[in-house]
């Protein structure tokens, strides 16, 4: 995870904003003042900040839904500040919170809007529509339905599909998952992140929810009033090393716990543990226990799935088959689980450790409380560490 942090040198700036300013007509104070930033190719950059700080205004200047009053916009080093705005917008996917599907058009026609304008032939459009519906997890039978016949979550998916229709390299998303219930939102977020793994678009994502920012962002820009950048960095660094009090306050309580949600079990050092088979004889297991110097052994079934923990005491109880000895092996996590989930599992199951399994549920290793604590310690910037670090 250390590789993700840092200056990201070597990556190309896909969007460059230079001294961007917007003063709305009739207002004396600018809504966005002198904003300069670079957004790298293939990254999700999240604008986050309090209501009214200028996130939406900034984002809408990138596709010139709002024309800047000053400054320049570069896409791929091309100055697009004054080019034809309709043509510019066809290169940029755009998703807003209210979605704005065209109610009089079918789902297929909604999705086909930009490809049609770009003059694609019928067959290509139709294939692309099917492909996109599949990508956003919707059945083809939805093609001929109308927006009013969809649920909020489905509309949001269609909104994303429509924005991606002509495969624009850039997507602008203004609180795209803001109008759905928390469970649907989480699912849409997960799906979108999975999708992004494949499509690697350059995405500007606006939210006022710091947790969503941490989850979605490769990089987060925390904005103050007038879109002044308070900190522009990776979620990891923002959480462990907030630039100032404003950022700290914005992250709110529980920064360390939030930080844990960004690290995966596979990123930290897990440990070996003595394991035996359910089919082994109790004597073999006792012998193993003695040699290992631990108090318990983990018993696995024939598929190497963890089943039970047993200690010496339980093994001494004659007549109890291993299958029923000791206590069940709960507190199981995967390599891709976050440390947050891992800690939660440990606490919920009253165990000071969790069993790490692979994606098929087979035993891999053990992670204990101490290891997680040490990982937290290592996340802190050097100067703040308690013991000088490892």
């Amino acid at each position, binding site marked *: 995870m250390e590789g993700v942090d840092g200056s990201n040198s070597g990556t190309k700036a896909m969007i460059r904003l230079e001294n961007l300013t917007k003063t709305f007509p009739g207002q004396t104070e600018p809504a966005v003042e002198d904003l300069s930033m670079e957004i790298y190719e293939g990254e999700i950059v999240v604008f986050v900040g309090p209501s009214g700080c200028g996130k939406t205004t900034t984002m809408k200047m990138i596709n010139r*839904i709002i024309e800047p009053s000053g400054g320049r916009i570069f896409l791929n080093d091309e100055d697009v500040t004054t080019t034809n705005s309709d043509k510019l917008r066809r290169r940029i996917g*755009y998703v807003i919170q209210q979605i704005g599907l065209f109610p*009089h058009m079918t789902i297929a026609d909604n999705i086909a809007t930009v490809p049609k304008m770009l003059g694609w032939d019928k067959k290509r459009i139709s294939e692309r529509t099917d492909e996109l519906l599949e990508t956003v997890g919707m059945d083809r039978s939805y093609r001929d339905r*109308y927006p009013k016949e969809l649920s909020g979550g489905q509309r949001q998916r269609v909104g994303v599909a429509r924005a991606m229709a002509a495969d624009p390299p850039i997507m602008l998303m203004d609180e795209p998952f803001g109008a759905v219930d928390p469970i649907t939102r989480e699912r849409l977020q997960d799906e979108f992140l999975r999708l992004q793994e494949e499509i690697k678009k350059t995405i500007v994502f606006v939210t006022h929810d710091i947790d969503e920012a941490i989850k979605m962002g490769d990089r987060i820009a925390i904005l103050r009033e007038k879109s002044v950048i308070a900190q522009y960095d990776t979620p990891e660094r923002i959480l462990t090393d907030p630039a100032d009090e404003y950022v700290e306050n914005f992250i709110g309580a529980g920064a360390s716990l939030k930080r844990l949600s960004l690290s995966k079990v596979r990123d930290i050092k897990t440990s070996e543990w003595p394991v035996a088979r359910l089919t082994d004889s109790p004597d073999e297991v006792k012998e193993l226990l003695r040699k290992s110097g631990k108090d318990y052994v983990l018993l696995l079934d024939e598929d190497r799935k963890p089943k039970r923990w047993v200690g010496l005491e339980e093994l001494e109880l004659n007549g109890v088959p291993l299958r029923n000895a000791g206590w069940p092996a709960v507190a199981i996590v995967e390599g891709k689980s976050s440390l947050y989930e891992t800690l939660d599992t440990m606490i919920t199951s009253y165990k000071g450790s969790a069993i790490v399994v692979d994606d098929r549920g087979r035993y891999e290793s053990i992670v204990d409380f101490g290891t997680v604590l040490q990982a937290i310690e290592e996340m802190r910037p050097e100067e703040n560490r308690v013991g000088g670090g490892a």
Partner: protein
Amino acid sequence: MNSMGFFEYLASRWDDLLELSIEHAQVVLISLLVATAIGVTLGVLTYRRPAAAQAVLAVASAILTVPSFALFGLLIPILGLGYTPTVVALSCYAVLSILRNTITGLQSVDPAVTESAKGMGLSDWQQLFKIEMPLAWPVIIAGIRVSALLILGIAAIAAYVNGPGLGGDIFSGLSRIGGANSLNLVLGGFLGIIVLALVFEVLFALLGRLTTSRGLN
């Protein structure tokens, strides 16, 4: 000529009445077309500018307050008698509700829809023709329907300028009320207009259904 019963009268003159009704419907339809062209055009030009929209609506409303006799009378020195002044006067009356509904319909399009259209790179004209007009259409057609009913009645007064339609019978009946068949003439004209109104209602309901996207109702 002796007075006859109304049904007897209908039986003897139904072919004349049918012809007059068709004339009546024709002049109303032509006036509606003209008014729709004017009303929709003005609406499209002004719906984004509240002040301009207010202004054209005020003018269209003012026209509606001019008594129809006065308007027809005013047109005689300019356009003479007959078809032309009839169409002009009826169109003037029909503009208001078409214009008002065009403006309301276009203004009530969900801003999120227009913004996403703009964000996808639709030009102003594409937004208007592909998105806003289809969405405003049910409201516009309702305006045309109201205008149709309004001018079906007013068209009868066109007889004053020798215009076509059922008005002739009504006027001549009224002018010699008490005389033979005078009441039948008036009633026949009324009946024709009522039947036309029903026919128009049915046709507009059908037209509305056929031209409105299934996604909108």
